[in-house]
């Protein structure tokens, strides 16, 4: 009886026994994150959406905002610069992702098959990842410099002519893609390398007994087993590459001309050169929507095939 009473007491008045902060501990612990999210992500996003449907005028007295419906969106869809930049962005994302994945996979396979000094090599490969993109871009900017840059110097040494890396409109975009490949290939490499090292051993031994060639084993064992990780790496790289800004901004400001105007560059120019915040917000909003739709379809369609428990 006594113990029953004790239980009843404990259950009856939790408020008096457990202090308020302990009852709300979970909320307290996530509160800083929520505040950060609201102030730095949610509010700006909502503001941007509001801006996208408005015409913004910066006047001496402050900001004037006029609601104009979907005019900004209509304008964006018809704007040749926006269309061109969408094409450049797509090209950028596809090319750099493809090259990075192929190089990363090749390196990963090479190192996983026991090349000497792979520890050193892996450490070296991490350097590009940890460098700030602006520093990387400046470094390459000077290397690409046509008169005293190291790349042209080396070309001249072997008897080749100098190249206008960043000022020839036919070359500049690809030259900057090379910088992205330099910086992001190690990322693809690291993920794929870890995945390869954790692959089960049995299918390889089964294939060895069956007498499969190296290429056969790669195609029928390694590649299928790697697909889930490969799928994730492709998604991460595609989305990250589509958002490229810093490298192009630092090296050519989107130039020469508008030859390297990706969507983010276009947004920047509209907002901070032309001060057309409403229009810039609309482009930016559409860009986000496209990425979200792409990401969702990708995860549902492409990744769903591999999300079932791994077989061996």
């Amino acid at each position, binding site marked *: 009886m006594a113990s029953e009473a004790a239980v009843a007491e404990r259950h009856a008045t939790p408020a008096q026994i457990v202090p308020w902060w302990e009852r709300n501990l979970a909320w307290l612990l996530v509160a800083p994150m929520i505040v950060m999210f609201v102030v730095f992500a949610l509010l700006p996003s909502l503001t941007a959406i509001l801006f996208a449907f408005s015409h913004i005028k910066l006047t001496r007295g402050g900001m004037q905002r006029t609601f104009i419906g979907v005019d900004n969106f209509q304008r964006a869809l018809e704007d040749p610069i926006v269309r061109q930049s969408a094409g450049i962005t797509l090209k950028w994302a596809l090319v750099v992702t493809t090259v990075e994945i192929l190089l990363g996979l090749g390196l990963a396979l090479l190192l996983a098959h026991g090349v000497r000094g792979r520890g050193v090599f892996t450490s070296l490969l991490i350097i590009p990842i940890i460098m700030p993109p602006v520093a990387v871009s400046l470094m390459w900017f000077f290397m690409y410099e046509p008169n005293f840059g190291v790349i042209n110097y080396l070309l001249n040494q072997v008897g080749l002519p100098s190249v206008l890396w960043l000022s020839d409109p036919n070359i500049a975009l690809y030259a900057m893609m090379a910088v992205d490949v330099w910086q992001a290939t190690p990322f693809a490499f690291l993920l794929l390398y870890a995945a390869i090292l954790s692959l089960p051993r*049995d299918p390889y031994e089964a294939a060895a007994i069956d007498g499969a060639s190296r290429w056969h084993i790669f195609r029928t*064992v390694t590649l299928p087993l790697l697909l889930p990780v490969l799928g994730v790496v492709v998604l991460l790289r595609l989305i990250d590459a589509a958002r490229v800004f810093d490298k192009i901004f630092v090296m050519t400001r989107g130039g020469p001309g508008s030859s390297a105007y990706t969507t983010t560059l276009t947004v920047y120019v509209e907002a901070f050169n032309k001060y057309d915040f409403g229009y810039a917000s609309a482009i930016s909003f559409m860009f986000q929507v496209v990425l979200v739709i792409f990401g969702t379809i990708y995860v549902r369609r492409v990744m769903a095939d591999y999300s079932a428990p791994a077989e061996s």
Partner: protein
Amino acid sequence: MMRLLGSRGEGRSAPVSFERVCKRFGAVTAVDDLSLEVPNGEMLVLLGPSGCGKTTSLRMLAGLESITGGTIRIGETVVNALPPRARDIAMVFQSYALYSHLTVYENLAYPLRVRKLSKAEIDHRVRDVAQVVQIEELLDRKPRALSGGQRQRVALGRAIIRRPAVFLMDEPLSNLDAKLRLHTRGELKRFQRELATTTIYVTHDQAEAMTLADRVAIMNGGVLQQVGPPKEVYARPASVFVAGFLGSPPMNLLAVEATSDHGAPSLRIGETPIPAGDRLGASISRLRTNGNAAILGVRPEDVVLHRTEEPGSVPSEVFVVEDLGNERLVTLNAAGQYVVARVHADAPAEMGDRLWFAFDPGRAHLFDPLTERRVD
């Protein structure tokens, strides 16, 4: 290359021989001086606890592990330096190791495609094998969509489709649930007998070993302990290890003292002398120990319980009683040594009871405590 593969002619089983084979990993000896002949068509089961060297032996035969010393032959061919694909073997893995993105049909066809057989021949053989292992209706599925038992059949099918000289099986049943394992065990035995192909089968499960094997090879610590038909290794275990490993529960092993009682040889368990009888008496005279110590082995089914003291019985106290339904296991404490008796389900015994146990010395085993080998 086709020359190597077809050296014995496809579809022909071959004997296997290990001759003084060693495997060392750095300072660790995984397999020590293994000599073993497996005649053509035999099912040999390598049995032992984990780390005993049985899987390493199988992998050396498969070519997945290099050989430190000795010679391995498949048929007449020394295979020491041959790559796995040139050894004319097929292996069933514990994890099945199916190609996960290929259909069952393609999985079965894989070893044949690699060998560049014609499409028609491949199709013919795939359908043939699918019928044998009863997976005809699963040919279009991927391994992911199969149950454990079905995957196991596909793995088996992929092994037999090649018609290799030797089958290697590395715990192929251990990923199945208990009921399915029992069923598949029976099927496996039938397949092996019908195909009449030399099979080396690795397991740590003695029930599997006993039921499947023509002969069992028991290993411990990298050393082969005993080879023989299941009945023989059970009836005449060659060492203390084998005696304690086979049987469930395993043989009781008691420290005894060999003495003579009025001139007749006898064994003393604790304070109780037991007449050794003729056979055991003769064994005692062959003990090499200095001193009188010996190890006595008695199977639980050979232990008889008495409610009262009888001549030649040992006093003990019931430590625990375990009911298995059709029988019960009674563990006795006899002067600090534990003895398990397998008795009828109705045999009266309660924890703490004082009972006397006895056994037929003619069915007991004697081991030398120094060598731990059987003494006959």
